[in-house]
């Protein structure tokens, strides 16, 4: 498990993808081993495709994004270090960086949103299937539930639905500045809550 992941108590969340204990593929990619490409697409294609569909304005945009993300994965494979983060986290980080950059670009291109976002309904993120829930996933869910309603909502609308700040403000009826501060506080409290629970668990294990 990665050092930072251990600190924030989240690394085992990756068990929902059942990839935590698998041998990393990126070192093989970094060595130019083309045979690892298919394995990498088998392992992470679904995750990246899922993220891209969720955070892209159209299907064709999601298709372009997925190709760019995997290009980033190949180009950055030699930067992966297992002791810092798990491979699935590394891939998800690259995916989010690319998707956020594209979202920002597309918001610049289209200007104001032409549709009335306030009339749309945004469902809460799905919970991991019961059998897949790890202790840490349960902790993450518990920590999310401890956030104030507005903070949790801002995180769900931004992380899961990929909405820009202005649309979140319209959606939940908060000033733009409050959306920013809710996002920061929510994320920071979530991290602190996860750290605390992780330390408590570590102490229990040591006893």
């Amino acid at each position: 498990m990665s050092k930072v992941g251990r600190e924030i108590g989240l690394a085992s969340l990756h068990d929902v993808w059942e990839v935590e204990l698998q041998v990393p593929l990126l070192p093989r990619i970094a060595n130019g081993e083309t045979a690892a490409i298919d394995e990498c697409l088998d392992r992470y294609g679904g995750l990246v495709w899922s993220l891209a569909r969720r955070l892209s304005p159209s299907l064709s945009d999601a298709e372009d994004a997925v190709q760019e993300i995997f290009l980033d994965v190949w180009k950055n494979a030699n930067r992966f270090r297992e002791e810092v983060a798990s491979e699935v986290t590394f891939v998800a980080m690259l995916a989010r960086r690319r998707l956020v950059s594209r979202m920002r670009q597309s918001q610049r291109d289209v200007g104001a949103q032409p549709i009335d976002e306030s009339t749309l309904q945004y469902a809460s993120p799905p919970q991991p299937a019961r059998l897949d829930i790890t202790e840490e996933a349960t902790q993450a869910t518990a920590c999310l539930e401890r956030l104030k309603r507005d903070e949790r909502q801002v995180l769900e609308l931004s992380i899961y639905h990929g909405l820009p700040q202005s649309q979140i403000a319209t959606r939940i009826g908060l000033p733009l500045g409050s959306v920013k501060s809710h996002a920061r506080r929510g994320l920071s409290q979530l991290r602190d809550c996860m750290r605390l629970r992780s330390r408590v668990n570590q102490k229990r294990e040591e006893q």
Partner: protein
Amino acid sequence: MMSDHAPSDRERWEELETARLLFGLSVEEQLEHGQLSAAVSVDESLSLEQLVASLDVTWSGSESMPLPEHLRLAIRLRAEQELTYNRVRPATSGSMPSRPGWWAHRYLPWLVSAACLVFAVTRWNSDSSVRPVANLTEFRAEIISSAPDVQRADWTAGPTPISGATGDVVWSSQRQQGVMRFQGMPVNSPTQEQYQLWIFDKNQSDKTPVDGGVFDVTTEGEVLVLIDPKLKVQEAFLFAVTIEKPGGVVVSSRERLPLLANVN
């Protein structure tokens, strides 16, 4: 004098880091984030990003769908190109996707210069099809006269020819530079379709030619276009121009392939 309510550097960094991860940053914010990141440890700077990535992984897990086959194929072809080109690239000591923070601060002056250079080159490249012919004519002549490995070939009709289109291509693999010359090519509408160059390399499969750049033709008179290879070309043997959707494609279906230039 700073207000009592002004956020500390640490709070401001967290504010910017959150915005970076969730919404993206403006150029000014990126620079500020880079400067503030210098005072934040690598572990700390990664913690929020890892947290968000982990939520992404968790929330995507139960709604995963397999990658569509046509996308998988396109990604695979591009990966083979990338891995073949970079096979001898040494592993770096970097630990993660490079932090946009500390290096931006450390190399800020260089970054600004580089950004200006990139801006200039991008402008130069993006405008290459409408650039005064005299400049590219000189550049083309300079390649022919000074590149020891210069290759030159005339355009010939491809499977879907354009009547009356002529011209040639000049290329140096050593310099990774070249110029295409066209006469009688139809002017394209960039919002509907664009021309795209493909470079076939002897050291790579014919299925994965190198993307030589997307370009526009603005006049049916003489047009010179700078070649813009996206990967290193080791030994070019064939150049092909296709017509694609705006922005070009990663893998061409080759349905519209009007021009070919065989250098052997």
